[in-house]
């Protein structure tokens, strides 16, 4: 019985020891599991954070995709706009080239009109000179006024400060000075026909013009205009020194010479005729 009791006690102790050991092991295991749970909890937290980060990245990515899509759409729109603008630009360049060409043509036309206008203005001015000369010469039957007018034409329209007006003495075959301005008092008052430039011009009936204008040669004679009526020389205009600002004769001066050649002769002749008629009337 004693043996059975001691056997039973040993058994209980053994069981107790086993149980204690098991409990101890269980507690160890429990502790390990606790640690494991804690570590898993941390890992779970980490994973949760990572998941949240990934979700953020994904949503950012989505936003970027949307942005990229909108940018692409904008780019396409701009591209279309560029194409349209290029076409418009090409059209405008074409129009610009056309307008440039038109502008060049207009400029050329304008220049041509301007030079034509200047030409016409010069012609007008020349005609005015001729008109004034003719009008003034034929505006009177007074000999003195015709002679004064002739001198005024030479001074104001031709631009001379020294000139002499000669009339032909048919009997003596000389040119007699009837009026002058600017000439020295000892100027040749009587020129034999054919003598010197003035006499030669009067004999030939041809207008003499010094080339270039001179102040020395032929006694400073710049031009000599024989006055002619019905092809017959009746006198001469001798033009000596020109005004300082006048460097030479122009086309209008030559036209004035032509006009003076006939109109001055006629005007002077008319005054003589008129004077004769008046004298006859008085004599009656």
């Amino acid at each position, binding site marked *: 019985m004693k043996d059975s009791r001691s056997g039973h006690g040993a058994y209980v102790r053994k069981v107790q020891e086993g149980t204690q050991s098991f409990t101890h092991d269980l507690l160890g295991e429990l502790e390990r599991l606790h640690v494991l749970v804690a570590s898993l909890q941390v890992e779970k937290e980490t994973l949760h954070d990572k998941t949240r980060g990934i979700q953020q990245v994904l949503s950012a990515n989505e936003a970027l995709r949307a942005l990229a899509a909108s940018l692409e759409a904008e780019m396409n729109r701009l591209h279309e706009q560029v194409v349209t603008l290029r076409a418009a630009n090409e059209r405008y360049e074409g129009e610009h080239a056309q307008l440039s060409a038109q502008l060049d043509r207009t400029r050329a036309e304008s220049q041509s009109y301007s030079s034509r206008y*200047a030409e016409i*203005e*010069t012609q*007008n*001015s020349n005609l*005015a*000179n001729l*008109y*004034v*000369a003719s*009008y*003034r010469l034929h505006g009177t039957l007074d000999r003195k006024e015709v002679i004064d*007018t002739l001198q*005024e*034409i030479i*001074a*104001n*329209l*031709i*631009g001379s*400060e020294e000139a002499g007006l000669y009339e032909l003495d048919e009997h003596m075959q000389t040119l007699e000075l009837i009026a002058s301005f600017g000439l020295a008092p000892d100027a040749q008052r009587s020129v034999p026909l054919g003598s010197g430039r003035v006499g030669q011009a009067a004999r030939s009936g041809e207008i003499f013009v010094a080339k270039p204008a001179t102040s020395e040669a032929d006694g400073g004679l710049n031009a000599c205009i024989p006055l002619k009526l019905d092809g017959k020389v009746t006198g001469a205009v001798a033009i000596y020194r020109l*005004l*300082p*600002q*006048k460097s030479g004769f122009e086309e209008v001066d030559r036209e004035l010479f032509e006009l003076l050649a006939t109109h001055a002769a006629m005007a002077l002749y008319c005054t003589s005729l008129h004077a004769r008629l008046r004298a006859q009337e008085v004599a009656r």
Partner: protein
Amino acid sequence: MKKKILCVDDSRTALFMVTTILKKEPYEIVTAHDGQQAVEVASAERPDLILMDVIMPRMTGFEACRELKQREDTKAIPVILVTTRGEEENVETGFASGCNDYVTKPINAQELLAKVRDHIASREEAP
């Protein structure tokens, strides 16, 4: 209203030439035959511009210009002298007498018209 221009010259041919040129434009022309008459006409007519020869009897263009520029009623009227000699001393004498500009004989129609237009326009712009 037409602008009035007083043309002064003792030479009837020169005066006729100037008026013929100016008649192409819408100007009213009045004339005088010497400096003294020019001063009288300018005072009575108050032209917008005076175009005056230099060498004239009774009163030269220089003297008339001085007189016009001294008178209260005519001093603002621009004067263009028409000189026979365009040498520097003549031009200086002209400007010393108070003239605003000058042209030389023989008259160039385009030059004359340009100067006349300029001076009339300047007078219009003046306050």
